[in-house]
C-alpha cells in the first residue's frame, strides 16, 4: 500500500469520540465496590458450632491453618477444645477448608480489606478476630456441597418377617468393598476416642482398614480390647454419637468396621497369628479373678501378657458373663464368643468353670492364695415385679429367661408373652420370645422415646411384630385354676413433668385398668448384684454402697489387694465400660505388684 493511506490514518481518530464519555471503571466520588455474593474473602468461624476436629488444618495445602487453644473454650465430650487460626500470609483463599468442614462452621466472608501495622495481626483467628464476620458470610458449604460423605454405607440385614423364624444372626456384616468405602469416610479427628470408655484407637484402625491392612487393624484393636468381635456386634457405640460426620449426617460405622476387621481373623488360631502379642516371661506373681465376664477377661488377658499367672473362677458353665447369658444369639452368636474366649485362653489364661466363689471355693482362700484379686461379678440377679400374683407359673424374670435359652434349656412360655420394662433386656426377651413363636407385648411405664433401650433394638423389635404399649404400669397378674399366668392387669399412666427437672414421670390414672391375656410374664425392670460370697470380715474394707462396690479411679476397693470392675461397679452398665474397668485394673495391679 502507498505510504499515505487515508483510511488507515483517519479511522483511528474515531477513538476521540470516547473523549467526553463517562469513565466506566472509575466513579467520582469513589465508591467501594461490594463483593459478589460468593466472594472468597477473609475467614469466619462459628466458635460454638466448631468442634475442633482439625480437618481444615489437614486439607490446607499451604499449611496455613493451625489448631490452637483459645481462652474461654474448653474441650469437652464431642469437642477437642482447639480452634483454627489462619496464617493470612500463607493462605491462598482456595476455600478447601470450607468444603471439608464437617459442621459447616468455617466459611469465608465478603471482607477483603485488612490493614494493620503489626504483622502478627495477620495470624488471625476467625470468629475471634472478626466476630462481626457473621453478617457477611459469602462462601460456605451446605450438606449437599460439602466434600464429606454424610451417608453411611447401608448395612445389609435379614428382613423383619423372615428373621423371626430362626436365631440366625440378623446383621450380615460388611463385605470388603463396603468396609473400605465406609472406612474412607473417616476424617481421623479422634474426637470419638475420648468418649469411648476404653479409649480404643479408633482413627488408627479405621485408617488401617481404609488402606487395606486388615491385619494391622486387628492388632491395633487388640491393643486394649480382647473382646472386639463382641463389641463389633453389640456395643452401645457412644463414639458414633460424637462422630464429627454425625454433626450433619450419619456417623461413621465405627462398630461395624470393628466387626469387619475382627471377622477377617476367622478362628482363634488365626487371631493368635495376626495379633502375635508379646508375652513377657512369667514374673512369679499371681492374680485371681472372680467372674469371667468382660471385665474379668480383659484384666486376665492383659495381666497374662505382662507375665502374671492368672486364674479365673467362673460360676457358670461358660465364660462371658452377661455377654454369654444375656445377649440373644441373633445379635451375638455363641460361636463368635467361643472364638474370642479360645484365643484368650490360648495365651495362658486359666479358667475354672462351674466354680462359684462362696460355694465351691471361699473368697478367703482366693484372697490368701493370690497376690491380687479382681472381682468382676456383675449383676446376676433381677428385680422382681412386686405385684400381686407374680409368683404364678409362667411369671419369670427376663434375664433368667435369656440365661436359660442361651444355656440350651427349654422354657415354656406359651403363645402370648408380656414383657414389662423398656431396657435392652426387655427388648431382647421380647425378640427371643417372638422367635419361639409367641405373640409379644412390651409394657413400659413411660413413653417410647423414653425407653432406655438402643433405638436400633426398638426398631428391630417393631419390625419383627412386637407390640409396644407405652405408659402402662402393671398392678396385678391373674392366675388360672392351675396357678398359671392367665392375664396381666395394668393401669394407664399420664406423663407429668418432674419437679426436679428430670424425665417426665408417669402418674397412674385411677380406674383405667386394662387387661391383656398372657401365658407368660417377664420382668425386665432392673438388675442387682449378689455379694453373698463376701465374708463379714472383708465387708469393712470392701464397701458396698447403693448396690455397688466402692472403688477409686484405679478400680481399687478399700482393701488395696482387691480390685473390682464391671456392672458391679460402674453406672453405665455396658460391656465396653466393663472392658475399660478391667484394663484400668490391670494397669493398676501391674503398677502395684511391680513396685513390691
Amino acid at each position, binding site marked *: *500500500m502507498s505510504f499515505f*493511506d487515508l*483510511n*488507515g*490514518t483517519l*479511522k*483511528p481518530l*474515531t*477513538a476521540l469520540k*470516547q473523549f467526553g464519555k463517562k469513565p*466506566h*471503571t472509575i466513579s467520582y466520588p469513589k465508591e467501594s465496590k461490594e*463483593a*459478589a*455474593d*460468593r*466472594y*472468597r474473602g477473609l475467614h469466619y468461624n462459628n466458635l460454638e458450632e466448631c468442634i475442633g476436629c482439625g480437618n481444615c488444618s*489437614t*486439607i490446607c*495445602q499451604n499449611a496455613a491453618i493451625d489448631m490452637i487453644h483459645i481462652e474461654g473454650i474448653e474441650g469437652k465430650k464431642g469437642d477437642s477444645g482447639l480452634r483454627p487460626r489462619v496464617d493470612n500470609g500463607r493462605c*491462598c*483463599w*482456595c*476455600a*478447601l477448608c470450607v*468444603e*471439608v468442614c464437617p459442621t459447616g462452621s468455617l466459611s*469465608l466472608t465478603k471482607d477483603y480489606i485488612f490493614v494493620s501495622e503489626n504483622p502478627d495481626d495477620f495470624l488471625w483467628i476467625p470468629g475471634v478476630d472478626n466476630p462481626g464476620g457473621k453478617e457477611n458470610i*459469602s*462462601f460456605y458449604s451446605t450438606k449437599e*456441597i460439602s*466434600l*464429606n*460423605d454424610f451417608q453411611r454405607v447401608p448395612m445389609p440385614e435379614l428382613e423383619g418377617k423372615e428373621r423371626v423364624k430362626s436365631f440366625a444372626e440378623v446383621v450380615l456384616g460388611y463385605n470388603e468393598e463396603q468396609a473400605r*468405602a465406609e*472406612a*474412607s*469416610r*473417616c*476424617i*481421623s479427628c479422634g474426637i470419638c476416642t475420648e468418649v469411648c470408655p476404653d479409649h480404643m484407637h479408633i482413627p488408627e484402625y479405621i*485408617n488401617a482398614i*481404609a*488402606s487395606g491392612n486388615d491385619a494391622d487393624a486387628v492388632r491395633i484393636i487388640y491393643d486394649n480390647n480382647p473382646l472386639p468381635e463382641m463389641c463389633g456386634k453389640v456395643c452401645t457405640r457412644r463414639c458414633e454419637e460424637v462422630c464429627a460426620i454425625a454433626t450433619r449426617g450419619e456417623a461413621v460405622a465405627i462398630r461395624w468396621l470393628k466387626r469387619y476387621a475382627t471377622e477377617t481373623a476367622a478362628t482363634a488360631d488365626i487371631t493368635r497369628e495376626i495379633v502375635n502379642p508379646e508375652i513377657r516371661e512369667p514374673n512369679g506373681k499371681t492374680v485371681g479373678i472372680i467372674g469371667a465376664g468382660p471385665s474379668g477377661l480383659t484384666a486376665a488377658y492383659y495381666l497374662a501378657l505382662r507375665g502374671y499367672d492368672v486364674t479365673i473362677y467362673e460360676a457358670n458353665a461358660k465364660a462371658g458373663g452377661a455377654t454369654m447369658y444375656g445377649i440373644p444369639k441373633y445379635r451375638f452368636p455363641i460361636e463368635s464368643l467361643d472364638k474370642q474366649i479360645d484365643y484368650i485362653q490360648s495365651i495362658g489364661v486359666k479358667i475354672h468353670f462351674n466354680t462359684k466363689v462362696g460355694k465351691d471355693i471361699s473368697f478367703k482362700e482366693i484372697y490368701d492364695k493370690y497376690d491380687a484379686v479382681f472381682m468382676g461379678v456383675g449383676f446376676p440377679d433381677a428385680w422382681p415385679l412386686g405385684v400381686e400374683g407374680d409368683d404364678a407359673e409362667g411369671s419369670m424374670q427376663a434375664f433368667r429367661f435369656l440365661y436359660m435359652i442361651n444355656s440350651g434349656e427349654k422354657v415354656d412360655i406359651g403363645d402370648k408373652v408380656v414383657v414389662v420394662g423398656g431396657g435392652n433386656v426387655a427388648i431382647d426377651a421380647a425378640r427371643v420370645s417372638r422367635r419361639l413363636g409367641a405373640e409379644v407385648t412390651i409394657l413400659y411405664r413411660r413413653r417410647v422415646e423414653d425407653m432406655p433401650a438402643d433405638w436400633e433394638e426398638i426398631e428391630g423389635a417393631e419390625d419383627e411384630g412386637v407390640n409396644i404399649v407405652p405408659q402402662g404400669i402393671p398392678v396385678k397378674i391373674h392366675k388360672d385354676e392351675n396357678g398359671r399366668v392367665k392375664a396381666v392387669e395394668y393401669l394407664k399412666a399420664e406423663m407429668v413433668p418432674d419437679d426436679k427437672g428430670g424425665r417426665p414421670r408417669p402418674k397412674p390414672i385411677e380406674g383405667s385398668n386394662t387387661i391383656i391375656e398372657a401365658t407368660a410374664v417377664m420382668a425386665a425392670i432392673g438388675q442387682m448384684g449378689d455379694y453373698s460370697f463376701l465374708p463379714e470380715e472383708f465387708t469393712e474394707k470392701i464397701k458396698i454402697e447403693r448396690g455397688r462396690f466402692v472403688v477409686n479411679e484405679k478400680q481399687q476397693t478399700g482393701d488395696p489387694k482387691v480390685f473390682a470392675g464391671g456392672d458391679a461397679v460402674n453406672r453405665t452398665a455396658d460391656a465396653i465400660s466393663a472392658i475399660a474397668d478391667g484394663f484400668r485394673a490391670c494397669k493398676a495391679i501391674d503398677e502395684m505388684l511391680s513396685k513390691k
Partner: protein
Amino acid sequence: MREKATTLYIGPQHPGITGNMMVKVKVEGDTIVEARTEVGYLHRAFEKLQERRNWLQSFTLLCRFCVPEPDPVEESYARAVEMLEGRQVPERAKYIRVLMLELARMGSYLLWYGGQNGSLGLYTMGQWSVGDRNYILDLFEELTGGRVYHMYIWPGGVRRDLPEGFADKVLRTMDYFEKRLKDYDDLMFENTIFQKRTQGVGVIPKEKAVEWGVVGPVLRGCGIRSDIRIDDPYEVYDKLDFEVPTAEGGDIWARALVRRQEIRQSIRIIRQVIEKMPAGDYYNRIPNPHKWALPKGDAYARTEATRGEVGMYIVSDGSTRPRRTHFRGAAYVHAVSLLEKILVGENVADISAIMNSLGTCPPEIER
C-alpha cells in the same frame, strides 16, 4: 570495517517483556544475529510440590501456572484425572466448564490487546481492553468467588452451580462486547501504523511450523487450520457450532487477525452455551479427599488455550498423591526454541511485538 556485535539484555524488568524472563540478544547495528531466552525467575517447583499434596489439594496450585487465563490449566488437570479414573462428568458441568473456558479466552485476548498494542506504542488500546476485561472479571467473581484465580473447575465437575440471574448477565456482557469490538477494530486493525509495523515481521515459514512445535493462534496465523477443539474435541465442543479462523502470512498481522476473529467466535460459543445449558448435577462428588487414591497409570489431557496447546500429563502409582504431574504450556516451545529462531534477522524494536504475538507467558515455561 566490520561491525562488532553487542549483547543486549532485554528483561527481566522491561515493559516490553510479557512477564519475568530475559532475552539476551546479540545485535549488529539494529539487527539481531543471535537470541537466547533465559528463564528462571519464576520457578516455583509446583510439580514437585504437587507430589507432596493429595489429588485434590494439588488442584489449588494449578491456576498459578498462567495468570491471564488460569482456567484451561484447571480444566486439563481435571480432565486428566477423570480420564485416569474413568470418572463421568455431568453434562451441565461440561457446559459450565466451556462457559468458563471461553470467558477466560476472552479475558486473555483482551489482555493480549493491551500487550500487543503497548509493544507498538498504542497505549490507548491497553487502557480500553483492560478496563473492559473487568466486566468479565465481574462475571467470574459472581460465579466462582475470585476474580483472577478461580479454583473452580476440579475433578468431577465444577464447584458451585450458576447463581440466579447469571445467564442474563453473561448475555448482556456479550452484547456490550460486540459493540465494543467495532471500536477496537477502528483504532487498531484499520490503523495504518499498526499494519505497517506488523506485516512481514516475525515470519514463521508455513512448512516448518508444525515441526518447530508451533501451536494455537500462531499456527493458525500460518494458514494451518489446527485447533484442539475440533481435532481432539473435549467437554462439549463437538456439540457446538463455531468456526476456526486462519490467516495466511505467518507474521504478526496474521496472528492478530486470527485472534480478533476468535473473540467473535468465543462470543458465539458463549451464547450457544447459555442457550443449550441442560439442567442437572454440576458435580460428580469425589470420596473423602484424604483417602482418594487413583488407579495406577498415566493420562494426558490437552486444552486449547489462548496461547495454544496446554496439556497436563499426570502419572499415578496407585496412592493418594501424584507420582508426577507435568504441565506443558504453549509458551514452553514458543518462547524458547521458536523465539530464538525467528528473532534472527529482526529489529530490536520489534522484539517486544514479536514476543507478544507469540503469546509468551513465562510462568508456563518454568512453572
